[in-house]
């Protein structure tokens, strides 16, 4: 899977789960202030990403530091690349 394909999979998974407008899903978008997620949503975000990429990330400290969609892209890319 290419980097772009991974990002597309992240964005499409999150857009479906949280009914987001793809036009709002820029890398700079803050997931709380711009995309409107909250703490309950971040629980589900982890589950959605774990399901999409077949990895376990719930216990990872880095997850708690995610603020933007770009943070998610970088985090997942690192995990997927590291695992591959």
């Amino acid at each position, binding site marked *: 899977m290419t980097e772009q394909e991974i990002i597309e999979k992240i964005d499409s998974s999150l857009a479906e789960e*949280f*009914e987001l407008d793809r036009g709002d899903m820029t890398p700079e978008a803050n997931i709380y202030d711009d995309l*409107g997620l*909250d703490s*309950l*949503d971040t*629980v*589900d975000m982890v*589950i959605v990403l*774990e*399901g999409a990429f077949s990895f*376990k990330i*719930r216990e990872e400290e880095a997850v708690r530091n995610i603020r933007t969609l770009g943070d998610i892209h970088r985090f997942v890319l690192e995990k997927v690349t590291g695992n591959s």
Partner: protein
Amino acid sequence: MSLESVVVTGIGIVSPLGHSFEQLNRALFAGESGVKYVPELEEIGGLRSRLAATVEGVDPKQVPRKIRRSMSKMSVYAYLASQQALAMAGYPAEQLASGRTGVVIGSTLGSTETSEKFFIDYFIDHSLERMKSGLFFQIMGHSCAANVAQSLGITGRVMAPSAACATGCQAVGYAYEQIAFGRQDAILCGGADEFHPLTTATFDVMSAASTGFNQQPTESPRPFDQNRDGIICGEGSGILLLEKKSVAVARGATILAEIIGFATTSDTSSIATPDSGAMYDCMRLALEDSGLDAEEIDYINAHATGTIQGDVAETEAIRQLVGDRVPVSSLKGHLGHTMAASGAIELAASIGMMLHSELVATRNLHQIDPACSGIKHLQQNQPAEVTYVLKNNFAMGGINSTVILRSKTE
């Protein structure tokens, strides 16, 4: 007797016969049926009934995602019906968070559909790692009440009575008592349920679900009819906005009806088989609460679901109470049994009858069962000036409930 008078100022309906008070009234006066053949029920082993009174045309996505994520279908129905009731009443938005407005809405269970989906996934590997955060909020016992309060910003008392088929009637009664006692000024009250095959199976296993009309859906259920063969389960929500009368009058609200009596009792003779004496006692207690004599009742809206035993027991109780002097009908032939919603939907319909001065006959009652005779069955709609209505709901678990309505007053 009440310390404070309690009135109905708003009504919200999501039902097999429409999604507003007006649509419900129109369908009932026209004698329509909300019962349908449900092909999916063919796939369920051992289930003999294929009929249900389902809600059509409600898109859950009309509810914003952040509100909806904690809702199953029943909470969506309760939320939409609550919005309707508040809008009809013109209820001041600033009162919702005053602490003087509450919610009393119950359901038979938390969401069975959500539970089913969870356990299908859970049994794959007994892992909780895929469990979404919204699960608990959809299966908890007070899901409808909590979701309505949360979504509408209501900060007063929240209660979620759960008494199967008597839930909606009990919820209205408990709300009436809260306001009558001065603890709240207004309460959204009623019930909601969503259809799941398990509900039908619950009755089918006891041979209390209709199985003989699978190819003629609208001909069942048949309350009080000689050929009745059981219940047909449904879904929906009925919500009434009750207000302290003095507050409603002061703000210029339109009063639709008044709640003047309530009783609920436990029939310990059986957890499943109703006892006519216990039903009679419940109606008598409600009349005592209202200060009325039985002779003053103008119309009885029966629970009568179309089961063999339940209809006979209720007939005996009504016969003992009023003989054949008071018109009686059941709306289950139109609506099926909307379970926890039925009490509130049928109370709303009874208010509709008072407002339109017309009584709705029992649908599918063509040949009165001799065991159900001796009371004044309505087999045709009937013009009538109605001042006092007695409304029954009885439930598995031995729960009886009766509410007394008075038409809109001076």
